[in-house]
């Protein structure tokens, strides 16, 4: 059975399992209809011209994990940023693991989507925020139809979340092939501040396809720092759909570190609904083999006096392929917008490729917008300089590539995470040199 048919036929069984709350039920029912009409995207869609899902959709995925699977912390510790105190919302094959998690309801809610969708006390938050900014395209609709579990973070106003929150989705490989559809909702109140780290991690080489939707609401003057660590196994693919709604004077930064996985597609959408908003989108991609990473970003400047900063760096080896499609829309009312976009790439192998496409749609006349993309090789004179000091070719290359990616790391605000990412980069580049910062 084709995956689409399998999903459609699973929907009824799924809806029967979860509580049939009318409000969410209607949303889910409409969403499955949207997915049924649209189907999976294909290369005829402009936004999917360079990323084909055909191969990964051919796997015979289980739509739900059949059993509860457990993991010992010691076995998966390395996937945590374990040297910091943090809240943890952990899922194993799509199911919540209370054993590995550390949630809270004290002063704020760091808990589960399944609870938020069913408990009356969250009713108002759900009605105000759930599925308000997620698009109704096929993949987001598919996720909405099956929305049930994920992270739910609700921070009231004037609250500084004193420790970061880690959201990790593990897949155990107990299913021959598994499809996961986590749904996260994050609401950050006025003047509040939170740091979040998200990771999807397969533990075997069994195929996993994750189609994730995250909605983030940053209210007035809220500060949200979000980090996505994508360093998955060779048969794990991720379609990440993230939507961020910002109110006036809020600052949201989102860093995406893509070092692994078979196919990774990041649909990242920022909507600026207020003045003096700052949006930062940064990414480092370092891949090889036949890996594929696609960053598809949108920043929608709707009101005046706002800024956006996009900085994506890519290093592509072997037969890997990359896509950067960065769209910036500046509405007529959005005067005095400062929108910057940069996408710089290094191709380390002759067989690697990158398609990069900035798209600027500017309707205001008093704005500063810039974009630049480069595709290059390593600088020969810099190579000679490093090697003349005794640094061998491989290490010199790594050092230059590290330096190339480094300015994206500079804005990572959690030192332990920065250190970890630095290490991942060193590993990825195949060297062990003193990258301590």
């Amino acid at each position, binding site marked *: 059975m084709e995956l689409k048919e399998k999903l459609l036929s699973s929907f009824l069984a799924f809806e029967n399992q979860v509580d049939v709350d009318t409000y969410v039920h209607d949303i889910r029912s409409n969403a499955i209809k949207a997915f049924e009409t649209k189907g999976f995207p294909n290369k005829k869609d402009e936004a999917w011209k360079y990323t084909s899902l055909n191969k990964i959709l051919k796997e015979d995925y289980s739509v739900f994990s059949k059993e509860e699977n457990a993991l010992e912390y010691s076995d998966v510790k390395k996937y945590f940023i374990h040297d910091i105190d943090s809240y943890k919302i952990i899922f194993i094959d799509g199911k919540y693991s209370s054993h590995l998690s550390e949630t809270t309801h004290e002063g704020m809610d760091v808990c589960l989507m399944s609870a938020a969708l069913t408990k009356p006390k969250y009713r108002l938050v759900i009605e105000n925020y759930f599925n308000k900014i997620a698009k109704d395209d096929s993949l987001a609709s598919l996720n909405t139809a099956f929305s049930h579990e994920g992270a739910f973070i609700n921070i009231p106003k004037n609250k500084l979340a004193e420790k970061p929150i880690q959201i990790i989705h593990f897949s155990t490989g107990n299913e021959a092939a598994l499809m996961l559809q986590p749904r996260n909702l994050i609401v950050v109140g006025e003047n509040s501040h939170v740091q979040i780290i998200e990771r999807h991690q397969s533990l075997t080489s069994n195929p996993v396809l994750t189609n994730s939707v995250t909605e983030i609401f940053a209210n007035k003057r809220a500060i949200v720092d979000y980090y996505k660590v994508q360093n998955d196994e060779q048969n794990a693919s991720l379609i990440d759909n993230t939507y961020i709604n910002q109110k006036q004077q809020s600052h949201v930064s989102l860093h995406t570190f893509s070092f692994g996985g078979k196919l990774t597609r990041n649909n990242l959408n920022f909507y600026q609904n207020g003045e003096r908003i700052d949006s930062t989108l940064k990414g480092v991609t370092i891949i090889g083999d036949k890996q594929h990473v696609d960053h598809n970003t949108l920043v929608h400047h709707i009101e005046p006096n706002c800024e956006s900063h996009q900085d994506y760096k890519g290093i592509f080896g072997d037969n890997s392929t990359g896509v950067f499609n960065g769209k910036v829309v500046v509405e007529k009312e959005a005067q005095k917008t400062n929108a910057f976009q940069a996408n710089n790439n290094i191709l380390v192998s002759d067989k690697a490729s990158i398609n990069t496409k900035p798209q600027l749609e500017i309707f205001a006349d008093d704005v500063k917008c810039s974009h630049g993309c480069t595709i290059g090789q390593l600088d020969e*004179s*810099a190579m*000679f300089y490093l*090697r*003349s000091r*005794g640094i061998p070719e491989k*290490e010199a290359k790594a050092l230059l590539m*590290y330096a190339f990616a480094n300015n994206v790391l500079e804005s990572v605000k959690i030192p332990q995470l920065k250190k970890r990412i630095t290490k991942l980069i060193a590993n990825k580049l195949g060297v062990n040199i003193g990258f301590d*910062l």
Partner: protein
Amino acid sequence: MLKIKDLHASVEDKTILRGINLEVKAGEVHAIMGPNGSGKSTLASVIAGKEEYEVDKGDIILEGNDIGELEADERAHKGVFLSFQYPVEIPGVSVTNFMKTAINETRKARGLADMPANEMLKLIREKAELLEIDRKFLSRSLNQGFSGGEKKRNEIFQMAMLEPKLAILDETDSGLDIDALRIVANGVNKLKSKDNATIVITHYQRLLDYIVPDYVHVIYDGRIVKSGGKELAHELEEKGYDWIKEEVNA
């Protein structure tokens, strides 16, 4: 220390060195002078192992070993150091991290363990002091936004850290004001010993007032056309290079 025999080299099929012969003994300072485009910097790059330069003929012997076929980093491991005329800016790599990597990679190549962190810090502090380098400077990105003088001091700082057997200073005086020149020269002089050697490449005699050479060679059109003592540098300063050209072309 260094023996160069009948060295011919070219870049992109253009012949630049046309038979260089040079012997530098341990403890000596040799100055190489010459008009622009004569091949001075090419000689420096060829000794250091820059890939774009093709050695067409001849040998480069360092302490009895032919290093002509070695990679630049392997030559560095054997004790060759080139102070660049135009040090390359490398954003994102701090001076300290760069030095740590260079030292430990060199140690690794020589079969030594990494230098302990405290020892490294001490060494960095000591050598930074020698070149009158501020500690803040060490955490900045390598050469990025450095003034001309800072770049050259940084080059000699690296030389002090790596303690090469053969140091080649390529136009180290260019872009230096008199204070920076004194600091750089002082650094080079303090690093001089009976076991190492220095080749100073310069267009002007000025630097040689501070780093006094034992021998002066003049390169013209890819060959050493005249050699002498330090007085030759003064003669060149006074009379320019035209008389050399005339002598050669006569």
